[in-house]
């Protein structure tokens, strides 16, 4: 897909309410955000700040109450449900915190799942390259239950990369992993950004995880309150402390 825009995703005046009337909770309160191509963006914020909601609405898993959001040039808020499904399939990859894989499919089948869904053929050299980088070569015929947590998440990342999507959304991808496996996984994600120019947006509350990103957006009460470039774990911790107070 050829695009003229430099942005992989964007949101303008994004509002998201849950519930109605008195009971309504505003999760997003007028968010404006641009996600640049080939950048690793992290979204941080305390629980309830709306960071997961931001990710879901950007990715077209959930709909905004008001405002617009786009993936590259496609304004997904104007699309029907089935059109959004098409966009997700062609342009978006996902990595969730857990339960990323279909238990009945092997690692290889899970990785090629989006291509199978789209009915497109598998690019063998691209597959081999991803598998090589993620170190999954000897695990391809295993079922998810036979893989460690770290391996499962790497399979999920491989799947997300496989269709060369416009953008990958990751929701606490290292949240369930021990620190070594987590660091490994985030390292791979960073390499994907640097070497393949992959765009990644990641939600996390872990400063160490966020420090792998190029840019961090801080969210509080449904609004973006700050932004940080070239982050380090210390800088992030420091910023988080100020948020709490």
């Amino acid at each position, binding site marked *: 897909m050829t695009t003229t825009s430099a942005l992989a995703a964007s949101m303008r005046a994004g509002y998201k309410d849950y519930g109605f009337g008195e009971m309504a909770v505003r999760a997003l309160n007028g968010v404006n955000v641009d996600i640049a191509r080939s950048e690793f963006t992290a979204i941080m914020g305390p629980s309830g700040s709306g960071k997961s909601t931001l990710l879901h609405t950007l990715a077209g898993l*959930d709909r905004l109450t008001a405002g617009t959001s786009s993936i590259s040039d496609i304004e997904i808020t104007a699309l029907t*449900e*089935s059109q959004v499904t098409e966009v*997700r399939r062609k342009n978006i990859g996902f990595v*969730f915190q857990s*339960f990323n894989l279909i*238990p009945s499919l092997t690692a290889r089948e899970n990785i090629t799942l989006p291509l199978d*869904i789209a009915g497109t053929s598998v690019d063998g050299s691209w597959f081999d390259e991803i598998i090589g980088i993620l170190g999954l070569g000897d695990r391809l015929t295993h079922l998810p239950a036979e893989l460690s947590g770290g391996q499962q998440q790497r399979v999920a990342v491989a*799947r997300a990369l496989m269709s060369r999507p416009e953008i990958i959304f990751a929701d606490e991808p290292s949240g369930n992993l021990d620190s070594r496996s987590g660091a490994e996984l985030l390292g791979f994600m960073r390499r994907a950004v640097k070497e393949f120019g992959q765009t990644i947006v990641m939600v996390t509350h872990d400063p160490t995880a966020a420090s792998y990103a190029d840019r961090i957006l801080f969210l509080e009460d449904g609004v973006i309150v700050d932004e940080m470039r070239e982050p380090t774990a210390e800088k992030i911790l420091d910023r988080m402390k100020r948020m709490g107070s």
Partner: protein
Amino acid sequence: MLRIALKNVKHNPKRLILTAIAVALGVSLVAATHVFTNALSSGFSALFNDIYDTVDVIVEPDPDAQIDLPEGVSVFQESDIDKVRATAGVAAADGNLTYPGVLLDKDGKAPNGGQGGPPTLVINWSTTPDLAGATVIDGRAPAADGEAIVDVGAFAKDALALGDTIKIASERGVAEFTVVGTARFGEDNNTQGATLVYTTAASAQLFAGVDGFDGIQALVTDGANPDQVAEAVGAVIPEGTRALTGEQKAAEQAAEFDQVLQYVDIFTLAFALISLFVGAYIIANTFRIIVTQRTRELGLLRAIGMRGSQVRSMILLEAAAVGVVASTTGLLLGWGLALGITAWLERLSGDIFGTITLPPDAIAWGYGLGMLVTLVSALLPALHAARIAPMEALRESGTQSRKPLRTRNIVGVALLAAGGAVFAIGLFAGFDSPYVFVGFGGALLVLGTTLLGPQVLVPLAFGLRGVLTKLFRLDGKLAANNIHREPRRSANTAAALMIGVMLLALVATFTQSLKATFSEQFSTANADFFITPTAGPVPQAALDVVAADADVAYVSRVAWEEVQVDGATRSLAIIDADTADLAFGYPHDRDFTELAGGVFVDPAIQAQGVGVGDSVTIVGPATTQTLTVTGLYERDGDANYFVDWETGSQLVGETAIQQAMVGLNDGADPEIARDRIESELAVDFPLVQLQDASELQQFVNQFIDLFLTIISALLGSALVIAILGVMNTLLLSVTERTREIGLLRAVGLRKSSVWRMITIESLVMALFGAMLGMILGVAVGAALVRSLADFGFSSVAIPWRLLGVYTLLAGVAGVAAALWPARRASRLDILKAIATE
């Protein structure tokens, strides 16, 4: 614990709904039958009371006595009635005579072609009002011979007018009556559809061809006790007859009718049990799935101190709660069903039902069966739940170890082997009653197949994976995986359908073979026409008319009677020996013309060592004859002994002709001959009809098809339950796979693809169950037919057309069963589905 159990049921009503429906459907069948027969019983008992209400004492032949009277001589003569009238306490007495016929239409033709329908009863009119059983409404009572009055219902239906001449045909010929009035039977002319024609005693006797009466009815004087009068009357009536009060007669008839209804109850109970048996698979499946889904929760309960036995009781309590709700629903459903059916029937045939209640036996059967089947089916899952360790609570969900299928396989193989062995014994060992072995072996084979289902399903699903992936790509692959993932569950689901379809296929094979057997026999018929009886036996006078036709070469008669030989009841065929072989290709070692006053014996008798030249002593209703065996009959199931008409008449006295075969002269045009013969018959015997071989075959096939239709309809509820089972399994597994489906949707699977995935899964299970069912059903059906060779089944036929229909229906059912689960799966909220706890 009861509280937790009830809360579980209340919290997850959805996953138990279909289970409850399965039980309720089975129960409703039982309940509806009981309500229906109960209402019918009370309705008829009221009717019998009406009939005998005005009559105090009834005199009739004793049903236990054997009275041998020559043709045309009645049990009661006018002198007997006089004796009754003279008995102390009798105020009035009259003979009564009823003889069936068919009221012909204005063209002199039998309505319906003379086939079936309620009869016309010709009854002598009693001038004593309370003994007539009917009241004159218009015109006047019949006074002169040949006058008649018709019941008001038939009078209106047939658009008769006073002064009309009506024709009534019986096996004895056609009689004409002049209508002089109308009568109302009882209080509201409730004749159950029959047409009543009252005429003088002399006319009725002429019509019936007798010289007296069937019975005597009497009224007692005021203040006399009917019981005592009946006793006194009993002393003066002929031997072999009895006197009883009207009240006793009504009670007796009601009891006899109830006896018949009991068979109806038992018959439908059998089908209800099949439904519940199929339902049991679904209940077991549901509880197994629920236990698996709640493994962590149950583990937690164990961790905080609940004993294994308490977990077991809790699951059984849940089952009991489901059983109570389902049985209640089933009872009410059955009641409603019975109300609907009775209302519909009453519109068709008048007020034949008493008050419609929910009788205690319906409630007892309903709750008994409903609770039993639910609890028994939930037992294994409950025992499994009791073994869940507290550690399970701490495990990640979705990692439960799968119980090995070894025990199941061993039992399955053992059952299959035992079933096969018994099956083979039945088919080849040559014991008596081989069909018992075949039936029992067949049941074992079915159970074994059910248990081995997972073993068959795993390779099958894997084999299909390739095909399905080719056909439907990813959707097909995922569907095959899902079936393969829970082989036990998928197999049980398919098994429920398998049993229903198996029974269908079995009955279809059976009826198809029956048709084939008949058509094979009819194909040896050389006669141009067949005459079969419609009302009573075929009258000889009618055959004389046929034989007199210029084109008719011969009329060959057949009759069957029961006789005693060496103390055993045997069947005897009586034939016209000189023409039988012209008319029909009977299988025997020499022609019937060589009977020569002797007897041919069939294979069953030959097996006793009886051969040509031996003598056989046959005890018939009239005389005992010792006959020489002059030939061998070579087909089972037709009759044990064959004698010529002369010998037969000596054995049984007056022979009732059951069939006649008519052959035409060479060169005669069958159509022209038929038209002429039929118009010759129409004069005196409008009820006698000619049929050619293909019409006769069609006539027989109609009955076979009707039988198949009734059985199929009764199996319908089992099939509906099986389809509910497929739906239930899919719904539960959609719930189980919520996150997985959410993930697939998140990475871009279309809703339509999710729908397709579930539908393929459903289709594979439905078709797999139907196929296995058809294979088993045809195999067991064919074997049963073979084992019934002694009853004349000569060929096995496979009902290919019906099997095609069943496959198609299974496919449609598969798609339909997937509708709800697929709708749910495709509408899952992705965010909720993928949300972590």
